[in-house]
């Protein structure tokens, strides 16, 4: 707290202490930030004429979104949604099944150094690339359709789930692990009775959360040919059927909302 008591007596006014104590560092950060912002905004090339041209277009565009058209193409939309849901379920399950060994290997307190580094490498690679890039390659390799989306989402799940599993295992209490080890348990029994009960509640919550993410992601892997509701949405956009697109977007929002309630309910129930 910086006060203005120069003449001895009680301070009569109060000033908030600066967040960064070092004067030089503070000004360096402020000036540096301002220069960066100016430079970044400079590259935005905001084309006012283009935006002016775009605004009435935006008006027409948004108008054509309303009212959302749930009636036409209903069969296609339902089919796409169902495909997305199946894709999300199966890729969550497959991703988790693959994540468990990788997560065990990536926990520093369980694995030797070379296994640890190898598993951490897999996690880092999977986390770096967005699902969309994975999906582009999956489509190249496995052909169009939900199978490619399933592969991309499963690989994406590994980076997320294995990392959190490994961190949870590293944070688990070692005394329980020791107690189980003292009974003469072998490695699998040790994992199953000392580690697994500690991490399970959080992992169930996370798997539902990941199901939610995978459903949302399944809406975009379709744009590059990975099947699901994304493919339907992309078709609707490229056929200028914006009212159908609006209906699809609303359906996605609705399902995500339901999933979110479901997952918070499940997490409470598990804990």
């Amino acid at each position, binding site marked *: 707290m910086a006060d203005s008591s120069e003449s001895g007596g009680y301070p009569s006014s109060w000033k908030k202490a600066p967040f960064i104590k070092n004067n030089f560092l503070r000004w360096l950060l402020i000036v540096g930030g301002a220069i*960066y912002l100016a430079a*970044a*905004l400079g*590259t*935005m*090339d*905001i*084309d006012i004429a*283009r*935006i002016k041209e*775009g*605004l009435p*277009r*935006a008006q027409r*565009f948004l108008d054509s979104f309303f009212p959302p058209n749930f009636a036409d193409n209903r069969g296609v939309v339902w089919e796409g949604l*169902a*495909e997305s*849901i*199946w*894709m999300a*379920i*199966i890729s969550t*399950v497959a991703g988790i099944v693959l994540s468990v060994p990788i997560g065990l290997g990536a926990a520093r307190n369980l694995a030797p150094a070379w296994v640890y580094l190898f598993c951490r490498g897999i996690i*880092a*690679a999977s986390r*770096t*690339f*967005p699902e*969309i*890039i994975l999906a*582009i*390659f999956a489509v*190249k*390799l*496995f*052909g169009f*359709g*939900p*199978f490619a989306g*399933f592969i991309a989402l499963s690989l994406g799940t590994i980076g997320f789930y294995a990392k959190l599993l490994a961190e949870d295992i590293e944070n688990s209490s070692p005394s329980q692990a020791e107690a189980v080890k003292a009974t003469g348990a072998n490695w699998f029994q040790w994992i199953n009775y000392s580690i697994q009960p500690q991490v399970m509640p959080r992992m169930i919550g996370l798997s539902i959360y990941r199901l939610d993410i995978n459903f*949302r*992601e399944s*809406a*975009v892997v379709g*744009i*590059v040919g990975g*099947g699901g509701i994304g493919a339907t*949405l992309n078709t609707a*956009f490229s056929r200028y059927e914006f009212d159908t697109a609006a209906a699809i*977007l609303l359906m*996605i*929002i609705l399902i*995500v*909302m339901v999933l*979110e309630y479901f997952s918070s309910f499940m997490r409470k129930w598990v804990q």
Partner: protein
Amino acid sequence: MPTYSASTGESWKLRTSKEQWIRWFFWLVGIAIIMYAWQMISEKTIWFFVADAPNQAADIGARMYPPKWSYMDKLWKPVWDTINIATLGTIIAMVLAIPVAFAAARNTTPNIVVRSVALFIIVSSRSVNSLIWALILVFILGPGVLAGTIAIGLRSIGFCAKLIYESIEEIDHTQVEAIEATGANGPQKMIFGILPQVLPTIAGVGIYRWDINIRESTILGLVGAGGIGLQLNGSLNTLAWTQVSLILIVILVTVFISEWVSAKVRGAII
């Protein structure tokens, strides 16, 4: 304690019979759903292509090696754009997310109508992927960095606002009361009583989201919204695989650096 009778007398077991039956039933339902889902997916799969995948992978792998390093000259600008999209998008999102968060938190919301509007904003921003936002915005603003920035901004509002409002709901109320006791009015209470308590969360969330946004902004170019994705898309469409591998390496390095920066800054703040 549930027990069962064995030849040696009563013995301990983990669960009662009823619990076991319920568990068994849930496993049955779960596995049935998974099998059905798998069947639906495999029905729509052309297995010939899947069987051919190893050949394809080897082929593409061979074409991608070695990365065309000379192409790097043309990648500096897109990388710079990508970082700008993420940074400016995060700033837009934070500016918009803080009022939304205050409107959504149970203890600061003015009334129930405002709260439900704020919650709806959060959910819809979270459920529509940034690629879809970009798809829509490219229609309106034309292709370019601006569409990407706004897409990232709109997409991030929900995430940031959700985490911030949860932390507003968990504040220590006695500090607000203390400020109130000095005769502070509503806005002063927020600025001096609530904001200092959630400021670390706000900073942490902003940096965390920036890290995620770097990753997301690498792909926005696929729909024409600027950044390195534009080059990726172009290279993929022209089958310039050596350029694709270089771009993937560049993305990898950028993401690693941003992750490192974000971890350092978060460590310094919190």
